[in-house]
């Protein structure tokens, strides 16, 4: 037995595995059987630890690779004296509820033989020295212990084919294939990419997970794996479930797992402690003292293919060599650039992004990267390069992109994952420190000069100008051409110098970009704006964009008006409007008969046919509504009054003017007994408007009859009066033409009124009021009025 690890030489207390005094016996036995232990000789290369970033295009030398592997394998969990790098701050998966997350059979198999069960796993075998039967026994006990202390139990659920199909699409679109092998060709007739040893194997998902546990993991990976190698792809719950369905796959029912025996729980706990599982795995109230073993050799111990008393990692020769080189190397200080390289490799940022000579989407995976805006070229589907990104993005935006949900490329199907701050917190800062760009003067002037530049910028951005808005949205308003990045928050995201340098030479930042060069050789192609001065034009664009959302829209871009449409039920909308006052209510019936009610005064204010309303939700718009076609407008004065005498003038609503803007009669029409009391939806969401005139309650409901000729609105009024009462109802005012006792017309509207005392009261030669004298009994009175819409 060649001992390659010295215990406790650094003076720290070391707890050696001690268990029933038999562990060492088994170790010895294991030694004798070393040749038979899993992977003991000539580790099967295809089982070797998978680190996706190391299989890609990175710039690390063997020593750096070793340093990175020390972190990935969590060597620090047991070993003292290793420099703690950012990329080393790892923890193993949280085992708190592992009994609910992972199928019991799988758990046993995996503990007994990690790499043999899950190809590429980073978990070492701690039982490799035990004979197979004993391995199984210990693994079963540990599993029983873990399952016993899990609050929930593992249960499978049927996979829906439809969800699985949606999940397959997500898998190949959002970016999973960068670290995991694609499951189908990018194109229907295409070839499968060749397998890549760096990719993390997903073939065990069906044996390992339940739909629920895998969905939960995909939804929020950091809850289980806090180190963030598996990042959060911003999946919604439904997406996570779909993706999990795809990974587990449709198949025969796997049945519910048998509840494991609890007999061996205590034993399992002791094994868990003895084998120091908690060095890597957080588990409440289970701590085995972390050994602090100083590495004294770069070939033995965990790196040995035959040592039996250390955990055995599935390493290939190159990995072993790299680790050995790194361990043997003298301690060194790490530059920002080096740490950036490690981080971008460890988290496989290079799988999607180029930075300098490193990284970028591999040619085989390239066809999997797609976009909804193919006309914008490759940059619409391939994640942007990180070359110089620290000089490109403002620090707070860069943090938002890496740790938050900052994203502007809505057309790109691949998603930028959200990483854990604890895992790579200093990356943005380091990028900011090392990346630099040639200076460009970018003054922020004030007063007239500011206005000159902003106006110039607005002109350049719009049409004709440089017509940036042909390919870029602006302030949420769509470009007439391609839906390129919305420019409105440019200054919130970008550094001004980078912006200027990018405009001057877009191709030098992104080969093949569709972004045109408007200042070739430093000469402006647009000679008329700001006298064609290159510097002034670029400064102008920046100064204009720096206004953010307060910037006036560039010429040529137009917001779509918000249109409310009526579908199969009635739509009721409250808002101010020219036709119904500030307390307006618009009501649209299916079939295109619409009206507006002025709830301030209690009057039917307008009727129109066709589409319902557009509403103003742009800028400060309070949602004011406008009919989509020309309405028939009616008088908006209070409609029900107790007139003092038959000749008493009708109380008209107060008018204000520019000269006299203050409401001269602010309690109108309350002093005439009117109160609005709201509305209730009935069948088909038809609103019944409720109001009062004194003690009389009025319910006002309109039905539409769009198919009659002419189309009509049928108004049902219900009066409920505690005692006999009399009300005058001013049904119409204006240029009324009485066709008969019961039929009157006014501006395109024909009214049929019921048989109640009615009089037409002339207010001028051309104007009149149609007054209905309502004698209300104690109790209820019903009235129906038909509004026939003639135009």
């Amino acid at each position, binding site marked *: 037995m060649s001992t390659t690890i010295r215990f406790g030489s650094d003076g720290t207390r070391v707890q050696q595995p001690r268990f029933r005094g038999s562990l060492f016996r088994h170790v010895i036995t294991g030694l004798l059987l070393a040749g038979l232990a899993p992977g003991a000789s000539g580790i099967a290369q295809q089982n070797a630890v998978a680190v996706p970033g190391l299989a890609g295009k990175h710039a690390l030398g063997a020593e750096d690779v070793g340093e990175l592997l020390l972190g990935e394998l969590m060597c620090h969990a047991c070993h003292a004296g290793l420099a703690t790098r950012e990329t080393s701050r790892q923890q193993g998966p949280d085992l708190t509820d592992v009994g609910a997350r992972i199928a019991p059979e799988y758990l046993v198999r995996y503990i007994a033989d990690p790499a043999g069960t899950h190809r590429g796993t980073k978990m070492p075998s701690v039982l490799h020295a035990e004979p197979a039967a004993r391995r199984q026994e210990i693994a079963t006990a540990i599993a029983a212990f873990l399952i016993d202390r899990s609050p929930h139990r593992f249960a499978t659920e049927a996979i829906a084919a439809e969800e699985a199909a949606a999940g397959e699409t997500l898998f190949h679109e959002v970016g999973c294939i960068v670290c995991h092998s694609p499951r189908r060709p990018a194109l229907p007739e295409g070839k499968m990419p060749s397998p890549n040893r760096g990719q993390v194997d997903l073939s065990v998902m069906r044996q390992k997970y339940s739909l629920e546990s895998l969905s939960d993991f995909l939804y929020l990976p950091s809850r289980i794996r806090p180190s963030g190698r598996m990042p959060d792809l911003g999946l919604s719950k439904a997406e996570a479930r779909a993706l999990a369905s795809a990974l587990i796959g449709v198949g025969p029912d796997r049945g519910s797992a048998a509840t494991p025996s609890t007999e061996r729980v205590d034993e399992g706990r002791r094994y868990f402690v003895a084998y120091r599982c908690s060095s890597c795995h957080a588990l409440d109230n289970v701590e085995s003292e972390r050994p602090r073993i100083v590495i004294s050799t770069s070939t033995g111990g965990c790196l040995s293919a035959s040592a039996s008393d250390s955990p055995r990692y599935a390493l290939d020769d190159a990995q072993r060599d790299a680790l050995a080189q790194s361990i043997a190397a003298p301690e060194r200080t790490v530059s920002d650039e080096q740490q950036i390289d490690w981080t971008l490799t460890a988290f496989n940022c290079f799988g999607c992004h180029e930075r300098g000579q490193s990284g970028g989407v591999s040619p085989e995976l390239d066809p999997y990267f797609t976009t909804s805006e193919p006309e914008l070229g490759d940059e619409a589907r391939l994640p942007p390069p990180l070359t110089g990104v620290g000089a490109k993005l403002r620090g707070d935006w860069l943090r938002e992109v890496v740790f938050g949900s900052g994203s502007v490329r809505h057309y790109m199907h691949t998603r930028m994952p959200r990483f854990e701050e604890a895992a790579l917190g200093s990356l943005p800062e380091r990028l900011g420190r090392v990346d630099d760009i040639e200076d460009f003067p970018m003054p922020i002037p004030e007063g007239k000069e500011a206005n000159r530049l902003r106006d110039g910028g607005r002109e350049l951005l719009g049409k004709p100008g440089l017509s940036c808005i042909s390919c870029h949205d602006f302030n949420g308003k769509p470009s007439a051409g391609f839906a390129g990045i919305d420019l409105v928050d440019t200054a*919130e995201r970008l550094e001004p110098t980078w912006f200027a340098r990018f405009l001057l030479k877009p191709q030098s930042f992104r080969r093949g970009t569709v972004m045109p060069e408007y200042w070739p050789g430093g000469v402006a192609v647009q000679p008329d704006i700001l006298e064609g001065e290159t510097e002034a034009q670029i400064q102008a664009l920046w100064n204009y964009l720096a206004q953010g959302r307060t910037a006036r829209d560039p010429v040529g871009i137009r917001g779509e008006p918000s249109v409310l449409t009526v579908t199969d039920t009635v739509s009721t909308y409250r808002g101010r409007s020219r036709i119904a006052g500030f307390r307006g209510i618009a009501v649209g019936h299916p079939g295109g008969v619409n009206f507006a009610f002025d*709830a*301030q005064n209690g009057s039917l204010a307008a009727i129109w046919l066709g589409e319902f309303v557009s509403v103003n939700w742009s800028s400060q*718009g309070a949602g004011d509504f406008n009919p989509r076609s020309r309405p028939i407008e009616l008088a908006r004065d209070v409609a029900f009054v107790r007139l003092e005498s038959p000749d008493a003038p009708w109380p008209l609503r107060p008018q204000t003017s520019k000269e006299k803007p203050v409401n001269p009669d*602010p309690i109108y029409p309350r002093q005439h007994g009117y109160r609005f009391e709201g509305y209730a939806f009935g069948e088909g969401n038809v609103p019944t408007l409720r109001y009062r005139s004194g003690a009389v309650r009025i319910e006002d409901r309109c039905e539409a009859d769009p198919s009659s000729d002419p189309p009509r609105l049928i108004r049902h009024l219900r009066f409920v009066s505690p005692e006999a009462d009399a009300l005058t109802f001013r049904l119409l005012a204006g240029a009324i033409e009485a066709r008969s006792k019961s039929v009157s017309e006014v501006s395109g509207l024909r009214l049929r009124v019921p048989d109640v005392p009615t009089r037409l009261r002339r207010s001028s030669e051309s104007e009149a009021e149609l007054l209905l004298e309502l004698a209300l009994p104690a109790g209820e009175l019903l009235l129906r009025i038909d509004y026939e819409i003639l135009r």
Partner: protein
Amino acid sequence: MKSCADLVLRCTLGALLLSATAATQDLGSRWGTAEREREYYRVVKLPTPEGAVIEAGAFEVLPDGRIAVGTRRGDIYLLSGVDEAKPDPSYDLFASGLDEIFGIAHRDGALYVTQSCELTRITDQDGDGRADRFKTISDAWGYENYHEYAFGSKFDPAGNLYVALGLSESYHSRALFRGWVLQVTPEGETIPYASGLRSPAGIGPNEHGSLFCIESQGPWNSSCSLKAVRRGGFLGHPVSFNWYRFAPSMGAAPQQPESGSRVLREVERIPELVPYAVIFPYIRMGRSISGFTVDRTGGSFGPFENQMFLGDFTLSLIMRATTEQVKGVWQGACYPFREGLSTGILNVAFTPGGNLVCGGTNRGWPVRGRLPFALERLEWTGEMPFEILRVSIRQDGFDVEFTQPVDAKTGRDLNSYRLGTFTHIYHAGYGGPEVDQTIPEVKAVRLSADRRTATIVLDELIRGHVYELDLGALRSKGGGPLLHQHAYYTVNEIPD
């Protein structure tokens, strides 16, 4: 008293720095603390359903734990799952077609919703999850002009609701009770309650249960402020005096204040005038402060239990405030809390899980946050920030409480406590400069036994001044600097 030249110099430097760093919208510089704030309070985005525009203007937590969100577009959504580790809430559209919602209160299964046009009791009578009955509770105010917003409170213990009404076009009072606070009783009666608002943006109780509202900078308001709403009170802007004749219970209109004076000087003449309780120095502490709430989370939001949290629309940030009553007058302090939210904040609320949900829009006015609308959750990471917990007044200075014990050396060093003061001109002009600056002398500092409170003795306290504390040199017991080194205390009265 020292000369105020030092402060003037600091202010000038501040202004220079500001113009150099204000790269974008002239919104004013950031606090610059966002990166450190993240360690203690995380901003977590609440995804919204595709296609839905949710410009939150009001929140209410329902008895079943769902959160009702009322929007500028007039929708009410009921949200479940807001407190989940990674939230993906479900949104049930409860009502739509309403008119700019800035208040929701729940009682007995009904939502009392303040829209611009009225206060409405909204219920679902047939139990299908969609509102079907909209009963007008009060519309006893004029609504006839641009910028006439209405903000509604929650119920007070007696069952009253309060509505704060902005002026017409933000300058005038052209329709009934614009610029007033109205009380709506459980019986549905509407009672004029106080006059003199300009452009309120939130109304509700302070941490002691007394009614407050937030006011925006403008005429007669040199800065945003928290105002105590006293029955019969006049809250500072006299343009709405024309409605006293419609409010007999309020008595005669107060005397006109004199433009160019100081608030406390006018209080001597005008007993109805309520001094502004907490002044938020303009830009340093918000530019258009909006909805506020009180932390009653029992500590799950960190150390600020029983303090007020306020959002700011323009700067997309959250601030804190504490108040106390001295000689019957409300006053208190405000503190920076968290910047870097994604949109203009219109309102905030604590969730059942003890997180602060913040929402709003950046539509219509300049806003730092880049998203057209957003719902976000502020959550405490569990790490204890080193913060000024509370500033309260003493007869000869202030007690400054901290969230962690302070380091003995810097804590006892008089130079760790830099103070400046100013007041505002009380005038009809829009906004106003900080004037009458002084630099008070710190004569003594005492630390409490647990070193969590520093008692500062000053040479003089001046009524009507805002005391700006800068404790940048102070260190915690662990050696770290304050997360936010500033606090601003408005002195209206001095205890005996």
